[in-house]
């Protein structure tokens, strides 16, 4: 029997993997995947708690998160394309024009 605890642990693991991906990788596309992973980990937690608490509002949040994620990816990919056009390179560590 899968309890809400299992879902929560899975969600936490997915979130941690996503966060690590963002922190470790230098390719912005991979970093976006990490961000997507984190968002979906949260979605999983929302759905699990929604079912556990018998409250539909958790599932509504999931749709909002999905919408925001889609928009975010659209903007993010556009940025990546623009940067690539300007610099022929998308290594995040080398994008440091705002260095103090």
């Amino acid at each position, binding site marked *: 029997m899968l309890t809400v605890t299992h879902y929560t642990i899975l969600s936490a693991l997915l979130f941690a993997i996503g966060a690590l991906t*963002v922190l470790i990788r230098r390719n912005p596309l991979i970093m976006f995947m990490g961000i997507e992973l984190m968002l979906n980990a949260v979605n999983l937690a929302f759905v699990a708690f929604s079912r556990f608490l018998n409250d539909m509002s958790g599932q509504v949040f999931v749709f909002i998160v999905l919408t925001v994620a889609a928009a975010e990816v659209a903007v993010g990919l556009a940025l990546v394309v623009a940067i690539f056009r300007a610099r022929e390179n998308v290594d*995040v560590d080398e994008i440091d024009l705002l260095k103090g």
Partner: protein
Amino acid sequence: MLWLIPALPLLGAVVNGLVGSRLPRALSSWLAVAFLGAAFGVSVSAVSNLIALPAEERVIHETLYQWIGVGDFSVNVAFWFDPLSAIMILVITGIGTLITMYAVGYMEHEHDYARFFTAMNLFAFAMLMLVLADNYLLMFLGWEGVGVCSYLLIGFWFNRDNLAVGTDEKFLSPRSSATKAFVVNRIGDFGFMLGIILMFWTFGSLAFEEVFHDAEAMFQIGAPVITIMTLLLFLGATGKSAQIPLYVWLPDAMAGPTPVSALIHAATMVTAGVYMVARSHVLYELAPITLSVVAIIGVLTAFVAATIALAQNDLKRVLAYSTVSQLGYMFFALGVGAFGAGIFHLMTHAFFKALLFLSAGAVMHAMNDMIDMRRLGGLRKIMPITFATFLIGALALSGFPLFSGFFSKDEILAEGYSRGAIVLWVVGVLVALMTAIYSFRAVILTFGGKPRWKEGEVVGAHDKDAHDEHGAHGLHPHEASPVMWVPLVVLAVGALFGGFVGLPHILGPNYFAQFLEPVFGGHELEISATLEWTLIATSTIAALIGIFIALRFYAGDTKIPAQLARDYPSLYNLLANKYWVDQIYDYTLARPGRWLANAFWLDVDGRVINGFADGLGHAFRNIGQRVRSLQGGYARGYALAMLIGIVVVIAVVVARL
């Protein structure tokens, strides 16, 4: 209708100030004369209205509008017209008109005529406000106004460095003289202002009527607050009326055009202090200590200035020190409580000193601005009218019997003697003697003897902006033009007969004192006829001895003065250098003042305040420099910081639950 009297010269100043420089010279100049002359006409009709009233009711009060109103306190733009202001406005507008008319001729070669006549009319406006005001604040407005006009007119030739032509003496430039006059006057004005503030504090009002009424009702004679108040007001008077210790600006004020010296620095503005003390006589009578101070300062100033005048070579400066000295007489009269006598001398002095200055101006005009008496001489044949008017002025100044100065000076000395100021009286007689000496020294050196100049001689190159085109040409002295000598003759008539309105009572009625009785209260001299004759004889003899000495020294055996100067070199140097007062003030006040100003500028402002502002900027820059390495442009580092931060926040929130 009273408001018309100051309004007319103000209108003249506005017209000349705005469009004067576009008008033809003659129109601009005569406009100034016309506006002041019209004010004189209105003044005469106002005074005749005043005389038509019964003696006790001779006060006309006219309120124009409320100037300041704060709660119970209110100051109005209002006029107070009584016999004292009547005499003052007649002197200001009457003599002012004559002098302005003279200036039309005197300034005929000046490019900047509109500026000159604007300031002259503006001065008349301010002076009339001063004497017509019904409260101390409005009086202060006029007081400051005449100060500004004095500054503007002393510095009229602001682009010239030295006006004295053909002399080896070093005088201040007009602009420095103007600054000096202004700064010295500020010291006095500060005292005046403190006095006004103390008055407001004590009485809650500044209107003459209320202040005088309350002062008599609230205070005994000798009340300390009244003593302090009157001393502060008197400090203002010493500034404006050139008394010790603030007289030093007046001799340097001679750097202005001569009509200015005559109008502002002899006849009217410098008498503002005398007027103010006389106007406040109710307060001064409550403060016997102040009255003694006034009398002593007056006599001391009269003495010091007269001794300096003996050793000056610049004709206008002799007259300037003489003015200081005569103002000292007026304060002596005020100090012994003879307010009417002081005002009487103010009036006669206005006539004969304006006359002397204007005659000296005619000499300057004829001699290409050369005014050093050692280089004049022999002008009596070339300028007979000027000689006659100067002589009349000098006789009046010396107190020669039956001339105007004789009656007024004699009244002051008699009042001083009868009120027990014997020592001061003795000094006063001595001053009368010296007055006669320096007046006739000036007459003889300027007009008598043989010329010490040559026809066609070139004296002193003029500055680029010379005010007369013939300045660079040789000397061709000539009699003054009619526009200049007509005012001289009118003033000479005043200087001759002006004294007869105030005869000593052994000779006849003193109309002048009777006219002023409603203001100052009547009193009789408490001395016998014999004593009065003796006093008159004493001052007459002093004047005659003085004239005799001058004739002997400067017309007879001309070696005597030089011999005296050689025999008593220290005394001569002391007088010729004006007791070194300018130097003493320079070293004790002006230099420390400048040092202090520099210290505040360079150290306090430059280092402390600037340092604080700059230091603040530097501090933030340094902090920024240190923390800039936190933003290395390493995006994943930011992400880690964000993550850690969020974890910490969540940890704290969870721990609190």
